[in-house]
């Protein structure tokens, strides 16, 4: 147990030990071989196949084990000086057992054999616990070493350098816990008590392990969030490239024409606002989006200045498509007959209905005086709305501008 602990502890010196199989290292291979030889020796001995075979195998195994263990033991002792004291204390009964075995005569030891027999289990337990402590200390040393991270990051790792699974620490805790249980068993605890202790131990492991596992998930989430953020940045960059940069290029080329520059800037402003409000992604599938498109078109074609306000929205169907088309017609009308005057579009929409007001501050006209050939435009608006069960009301007075009110359904 002791040797195994040191062995595992030593592998920590490698840059990224957790990613490698234990047996993939030369030391690991040697240790495994040594273990196999020893087990084989035991098997041969139990099989009563004579003494020579098992002895040879055991000798080989011990030799191999020593090759690995001795340098590592020294290294571990250098790093953890107290380990030597602990190991000596823990091993003392074993040594004494060995001595009594050699001298064979316990008469001069004055009751020491009894003491040794009593201490022997304790010694084994202490060695196991020592191994567990070493494992735990190594794991903590790697995690808590100077690194410039927050304590939590040190334990759970970061996105860039996720901490290896805490196998060493778990093994260490298991050894410690096992030792403690054995200890209690020796001390005379009953099965029931041990079960309770075992459950308590599991609880403690869960208590320590749960936050670590959660942190692992959180880290995975963080990676996903960061990926999403990067995607979002790309999306924004792509949009800005297609829209704002494009417009800026156009502005530079048309710098001599202030009206064109103003128009470009205004259209871009509209688009950007709609995009920022998330309305563009909602789709050109809504009444508001269709109106925005219509407004941008008329602004571009006629050089008009149109202020659009949309309250609420609803999807495009036959009725709202007609409404948007009629509004576009009304806008063209207004831009044609009231050049230069501001145009206001106000839309209120809900699931029950929608209304759009298109108003200009132009010269206006008396309906009765409108020549027949110009009524066609108006009729196309009125006819369109009537076809979907809506209404269109044109209101104009000379000198007071014109307002066309388009309605479908019911607006509260």
């Amino acid at each position, binding site marked *: 147990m002791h040797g195994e602990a040191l062995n595992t502890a030593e592998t920590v010196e490698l840059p990224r030990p957790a990613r490698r199989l234990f047996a993939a290292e030369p030391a690991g291979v040697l240790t495994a071989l040594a273990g196999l030889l020893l087990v084989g020796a035991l098997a041969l001995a139990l099989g009563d196949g004579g003494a020579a075979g098992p002895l040879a195998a055991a000798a080989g195994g011990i030799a191999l084990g020593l090759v690995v263990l001795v340098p590592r033991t020294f290294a571990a002792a250098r790093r953890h000086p107290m380990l030597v004291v602990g190991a000596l204390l823990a091993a003392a009964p074993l040594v004494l057992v060995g001595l009594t075995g050699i001298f064979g005569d316990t008469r001069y030891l004055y009751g020491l054999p009894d003491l040794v027999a009593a201490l022997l289990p304790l010694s084994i337990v202490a060695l196991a616990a020592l191994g567990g402590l070493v494992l735990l200390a190594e794991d903590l040393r790697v995690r808590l070493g100077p690194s410039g991270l927050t304590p939590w990051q040190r334990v759970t790792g970061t996105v860039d350098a996720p901490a290896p699974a805490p196998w060493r620490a778990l093994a260490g805790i298991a050894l410690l816990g096992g030792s403690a249980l054995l200890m209690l068993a020796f001390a005379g605890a009953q099965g029931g008590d041990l079960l309770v202790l075992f459950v308590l131990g599991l609880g403690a492991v869960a208590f320590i392990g749960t936050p670590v596992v959660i942190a692992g998930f959180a880290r995975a989430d963080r990676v996903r969030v960061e990926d999403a953020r990067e995607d979002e940045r790309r999306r924004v960059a792509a949009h800005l490239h297609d829209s704002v940069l494009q417009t800026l290029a156009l502005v530079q080329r048309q710098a001599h024409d202030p009206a064109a520059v103003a128009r470009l800037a205004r259209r871009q402003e509209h688009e950007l606002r709609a995009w920022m*409000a998330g309305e563009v992604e909602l789709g050109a599938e809504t009444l508001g989006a269709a109106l925005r498109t219509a407004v941008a078109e008329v602004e571009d074609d006629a050089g008009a200045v149109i*202020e659009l306000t949309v309250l609420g929205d609803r999807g495009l169907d036959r009725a709202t498509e007609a409404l948007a088309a009629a509004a576009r017609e009304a806008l063209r009308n207004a831009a044609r007959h009231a050049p230069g005057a501001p145009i206001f579009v106000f839309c209120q929409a809900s699931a029950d209905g929608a209304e759009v007001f298109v108003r200009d501050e132009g010269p206006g006209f008396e309906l009765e005086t409108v020549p027949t050939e110009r009524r066609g435009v108006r009729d196309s608006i009125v006819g369109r709305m009537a076809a979907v069960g809506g209404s269109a009301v044109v209101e104009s007075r000379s000198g007071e501008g014109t*307002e066309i009110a388009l309605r479908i359904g019911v607006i509260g």
Partner: protein
Amino acid sequence: MKIVVVDDHHLFRAGVRAELAAHHDVVGEAATPAEALRVIAATRPDVVLLDVHLPEGGGVSVLEGLGVGGVGIPKVLALSVSDAAEDVVPMIRAGALGYVTKTIDTEELLAAVQTVAAGDACFSPRLAAFVLQAFSAPAPAADELQALTPREREVLHHLARGYSYKRIAARLGISDRTVESHVGAVLRKLQLTSRHEVSHWAATRGLVTGEDDA
């Protein structure tokens, strides 16, 4: 008329100063709420042009610091690049008499300054639409906010459609002064609920979800 311009963009302040210089006296500028309160206290302006988005608390914190409503308090006209209702409506609620977007042209800005200086509300069509929306969402029972009279609602609706006070008065057959008093009443009703209710107020009326921003 003495005017103070509060905006965290130096270039914008310079532009507004240049626009207003021929007609009014721009007596001070400020870039942060704290600076604004100092400058306003020192210069006692008639009108403050106040940006909605300021570092350290925004325009609303300036309005709170001014304690709007007291004697000798300057009239405030809010300026914003944003058309979002959740930016604009809180400014009006906190005491600004009007709101204009920063893309407004000089004449309209001068007109808005005049209106506000006279103590009247300056509702752009868009602001009128936002306020209309704020009042038309279903309100809990016994909410004093829901009490917009049909006339007030009609006036707001006309404002949203781009009608001037004068035109509204003519259409509804009432005097200009009456239209102004209707708008003033709407403004007071908007400012009625105490400040801590604002977020709840906005949330229940769909003003903070962003889905209704025009």
